[in-house]
């Protein structure tokens, strides 16, 4: 085309046309962006769909790989009133048809569903929650409902939202270890207590996020400037808990607490060679599937007292005193620590002091039965659990060394287990008074949880090496990466030789405790045993009540060092409380010995 042949006027008309076009564009842009900004912004927002991509919480498995907790995909169903009304006005379906078909799938009465919709409408809602936590099959049944007059088209008005249900298939088993998944004080669904709570950050799923633009027909418009965030399943956690051992321990503990009318009880079973917690039980227990029922009626059952309640365990602490004395070579098992015996009580302060005359019990140490005894060696003192013999043994080592060894056994420290735990500080040495060396010598005056106590005693049961107790053996990431927990020595308070001597003395305690003929068959096992009894302090004032904490510990003395087991009954009733706790321990041992293949002597 020859440009010079186009008349200038025509070109001016075209340019004028372009000018008008651009002017109109500016006018419309002004209208869209300034005048009707809100309206178009709302329309644009409707075209952008933000989609959360759900993922499931990680599972919890026992030592054998069997499932202790898992999450199942479930669905919440909402009725969208506007869509139901619109579908009716367009003649697609009737409200009655919707109610009839949906109520049948949901196993509801049609009148109940109709009332639900009416109530929602009268409250001004357009989205009405009509079913929660439906299974996949039920959800599929619901979304595949068709209209009567157009059988190829789905029934309108239902919207599906993803949710999940946490399932604990073993119910009460190991409930205090596992914890539960529920609503916290601010209505957030989180892991509470146990592994569920402590490992919340790892177990919880990370929801994905995706943004889509749709056209006015609702079809997706591909966009290139947004990368979806992938959802991520929570990690899977494998425990050291052996389900069969846990069943045995729980069953014996439950029976013992009920039979001996204790307020509660706890038991801990550890492999002393590795520190793996094979069983950890508390009673009363609960079913985490129904945590809400317990939260309302008996919230105290959630407390894992084996790791959360430090208490005075009494004479079991004598093991630490004697271990320190042997390790420091201050005494030997045959040292005649009480050459003249005692009269049942002995003053450790001047009995002529005025305060001692007023209240002699504050100034003297007595045995449990307060009966006189003849000359006594250190070994015999430990076997008879004689408080006065232990006081004299502690005098041989002094406060500083006793304090040093209690620290070496990590009394006053958390055990470090991967669970929420409490601990009680050991009083600093500079604050010890005249009575502390005395009371500490026979295991009174300081506290630890049952788990901390058993953990400390792995230092004796495992040739002087104290193992870090642990309950999580393996973590498996969603991509299959595994992290395996390894045993860890955290302290070496005594030598193997001292541990062997202590074991020999405690074996005699075990033999002495099997005096009934029906327990004689257990004499073939090399077991070390020690009991402890302490009065329960008042919670609202100073002093001690008549109730007791009764503790029994025992461990395998064979070279295979199969187990260390501790049992604690809180406030058992009757004069034979300590005896009864021993029965609970023996019942547990009978249950586990063959399963663990504990060697005979």
């Amino acid at each position, binding site marked *: 085309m020859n*440009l*010079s042949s*186009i008349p*200038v006027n025509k*070109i*001016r008309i*075209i*340019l004028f046309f*372009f000018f008008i076009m651009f002017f109109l564009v500016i006018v419309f842009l002004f209208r869209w962006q300034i005048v009707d900004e809100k309206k178009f912004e709302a329309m644009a927002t409707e075209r952008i769909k933000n989609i959360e991509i759900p993922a*499931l919480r990680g*599972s919890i498995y*026992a030592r*054998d*790989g*069997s*499932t202790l907790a*898992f*999450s*199942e*995909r479930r669905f919440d169903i909402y009725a969208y009133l506007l869509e139901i009304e619109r579908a009716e006005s367009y003649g697609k379906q009737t409200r009655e048809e919707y109610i009839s078909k949906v109520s049948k799938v949901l196993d509801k009465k049609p009148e109940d569903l109709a009332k639900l919709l009416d109530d929602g409408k009268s409250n001004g809602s357009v989205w009405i929650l009509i079913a929660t936590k439906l299974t*996949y099959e039920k959800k599929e049944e619901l979304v595949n409902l068709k209209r009567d007059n157009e059988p190829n088209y789905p029934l309108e008005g239902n919207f599906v939202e993803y949710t999940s249900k946490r*399932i604990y*298939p*073993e119910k009460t088993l190991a409930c205090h270890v596992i914890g539960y998944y529920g609503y916290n004080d601010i209505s957030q669904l989180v892991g509470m207590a146990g592994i569920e709570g402590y490992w919340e950050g790892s177990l919880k799923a990370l929801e994905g996020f995706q943004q889509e633009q749709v*056209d006015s027909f609702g*079809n*997706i*418009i*591909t966009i290139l400037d947004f990368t979806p965030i992938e959802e991520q399943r929570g990690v899977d956690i494998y425990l050291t808990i052996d*389900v*069969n051992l846990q*069943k*045995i321990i729980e*069953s*014996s503990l439950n*029976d013992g607490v009920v039979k001996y009318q204790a307020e509660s009880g706890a038991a801990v079973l550890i492999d002393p060679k590795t520190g793996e917690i094979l069983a950890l039980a508390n009673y009363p227990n609960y079913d985490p599937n129904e945590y809400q029922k317990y939260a309302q009626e008996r919230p105290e059952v959630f407390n894992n007292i084996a790791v959360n309640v430090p208490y005075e365990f009494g004479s079991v602490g004598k093991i630490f005193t004697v271990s320190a004395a042997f390790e420091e070579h201050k005494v030997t098992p045959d040292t005649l620590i009480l050459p003249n015996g005692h009269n049942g009580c002995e003053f450790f302060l001047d009995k002529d002091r005025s305060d001692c005359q007023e209240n002699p019990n504050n100034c003297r140490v007595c045995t449990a039965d307060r009966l006189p005894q003849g000359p006594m060696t250190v070994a015999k003192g430990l076997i008879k659990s004689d408080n006065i013999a232990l006081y004299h043994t502690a005098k041989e080592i002094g406060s500083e060394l006793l304090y040093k060894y209690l620290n070496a056994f990590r009394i006053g420290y958390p055990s470090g287990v991967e669970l929420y735990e409490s601990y009680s500080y050991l009083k600093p040495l500079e604050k010890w008074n005249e009575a502390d060396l005395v009371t500490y010598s026979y295991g009174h005056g300081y506290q630890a949880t049952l788990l901390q106590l058993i953990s400390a005693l792995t230092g004796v049961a495992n040739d002087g090496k104290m193992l870090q107790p642990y309950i999580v053996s393996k973590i498996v990431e969603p991509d299959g990466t595994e992290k395996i927990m390894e045993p860890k020595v955290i302290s070496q308070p005594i030598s193997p030789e001292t541990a062997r001597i202590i074991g020999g003395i405690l074996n005699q305690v075990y033999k002495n405790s099997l005096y009934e003929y029906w327990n004689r068959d257990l004499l073939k096992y090399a077991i070390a045993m020690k009991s402890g009894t302490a009065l329960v302090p008042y919670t609202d004032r100073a002093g001690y009540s008549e109730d007791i904490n009764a503790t029994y510990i025992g461990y395998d003395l064979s070279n295979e060092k199969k187990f260390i087991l501790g049992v604690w009954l809180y406030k058992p009733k009757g004069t034979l409380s300590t005896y009864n706790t021993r029965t609970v321990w023996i*019942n547990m041992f*009978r*249950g586990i*010995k*063959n*399963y663990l293949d504990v060697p005979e002597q």
Partner: protein
Amino acid sequence: MQKLVEYNESLNKPSIFHKIQKQVAIILGIVLVIALGANLSLLTFLGTKGDELSKIRNAQEQQKLINDLYRSRIEALNVNTEIDKQARDELKMRKSDIIIIDSDNLKRIAAK
């Protein structure tokens, strides 16, 4: 007269400015046509891809749901008591093959 004719001719003769105006008008026209065409084809292309994407995403979502479903079914079966029961009832294993029962408590558990 000659001057008048020359003047009229000079009026009809396109100036540099007129030439630029013409060029701009043509370029704008071409750009407009290309832009409209490209826009239409892009939207058409994206529209078909969007439809495909919807189908793929729906299929992916459904697959994830089915995976979740199978996983939870396996988890529900992978329960110690369930394994125990199946071993006894279906595989006809003896009790001692699963767990050696020694105490009264265990016998009670087994009886439940």
